[in-house]
């Protein structure tokens, strides 16, 4: 009864969307919910970057994965802004709307292109192994902070985004490069 990797990803998508909705509709719950959103979104994104995107990229989704990786980088930046915003301030609503719109559109894209292509091209055995790898990566990254990353993680993000020739860059340099890339 191994879980299906695509179902696992979809479950996270729905839960994250539900959190956006609650954050929007129940301002009083914001202090409670922002840490959940932050932990879940980061763990989910990083597990995808580590385990799903490299495989999806190889399965032919080069352009989609480049775009998806950039969207993850932008989402983390917005998450930092959301954590810093005062929950009662209108700035919070602005950032929340921007983040929610961006992430929701990103999910739709993934669900329409990346995930079906994976299902089509990967064998059952690969999909099962991927489900395990995704869950264990997600647990490993649970509780990490936005922008707080190891060099090896940044290098994986760079590969996912289609960059080459970054292996000499130090952690800060690579982080800067990725941030610029996300903004472009």
């Amino acid at each position, binding site marked *: 009864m191994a879980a299906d990797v695509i179902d696992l990803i979809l*479950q996270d998508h729905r*839960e994250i969307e*539900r959190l956006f909705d*609650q954050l929007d509709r129940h301002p009083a*719950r914001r*202090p*409670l*919910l*922002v*840490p*959940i959103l932050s*932990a*879940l979104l980061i763990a989910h994104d990083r597990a995808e970057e580590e385990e799903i995107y490299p495989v999806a990229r190889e399965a032919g989704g080069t352009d989609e994965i480049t775009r998806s990786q950039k969207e993850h980088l932008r989402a983390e930046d917005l998450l930092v802004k959301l954590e810093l915003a005062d929950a009662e301030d209108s700035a919070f609503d602005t950032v929340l709307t921007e983040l929610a719109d961006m992430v929701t559109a990103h999910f739709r894209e993934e669900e329409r292109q990346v995930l079906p292509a994976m299902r089509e091209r990967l064998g059952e055995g690969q999909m099962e192994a991927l489900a395990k790898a995704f*869950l264990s990566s*997600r*647990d490993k990254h*649970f*509780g990490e902070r936005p922008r707080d990353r190891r060099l090896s993680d940044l290098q994986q993000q760079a590969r996912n985004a289609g960059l080459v020739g970054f292996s000499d860059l130090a952690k800060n340099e690579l982080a800067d490069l990725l941030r610029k890339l996300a903004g472009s």
Partner: protein
Amino acid sequence: MDYEQFVGIVLQELSQVNRESADRAAQATFQTLAERLSRGQARDLVEQLPGSGPWLFTESDAEPFDYDEFVLRVAKREGVDETTAERHARAVFATLGRSIDPGELGDLIAELPEDFGPLVAEAQGRFDELMPADEFVRRVAERAGLDFDAAGRAVEAILQTLAERLAPGEVDDLNARLARAFHPALKQGKDRQNVATRRMDRDEFLQRVAERSGVPAEAAFVLARAVLTTLREALPGEEFWDIAAELPAEYAVLWPAR
């Protein structure tokens, strides 16, 4: 096996006590057990353990007290603290399991409620060691980045709130599998549960946890995840997942995936 041989084995089970203490432990446990059992069951036991008659003799019906009360009574009879009494009672039950017929043991176990799990497990020789309370709290402190006292308050707040949310039978299972230091919190939660707490959603759960442990709402999620992750480590086999299965899917962010 007669009573004298029985005490000899209890003596081996308990390190650093003399024969007199082992004798007192066996007497106190048997007297309390006699109060808990039906007259017929107590008489059956005496037949299996000649010489234990004075201690297992009872003329009253079974008193329906719980595990904590059992340990308390043993402690009073022995004149020791409850932690020591529990250790002694467990040694007596472990010995009991090896001394009487399996069928007789089955009858005895059938008369004891769910929360006597630790003693029953000893008697059946399948005891998985309970995670000591200090170890539990220490792991939570490390995970949540708290000092020991704050982590202790968080554990109690979360267990109490969990006990308000779960079916009473699940709370009894938890009680049997967690160190005694956590039992008051579980009992409080179980006593206070009502229709509303049984339906509590994840966010209400976290809100209560924040209030009870005296932390800001922002901290509740990290605390809850630290405690429930540790709970998963503390419970043997499928027990954690039995509890998880009772909670709606939105709670699943509070513990690592299976």
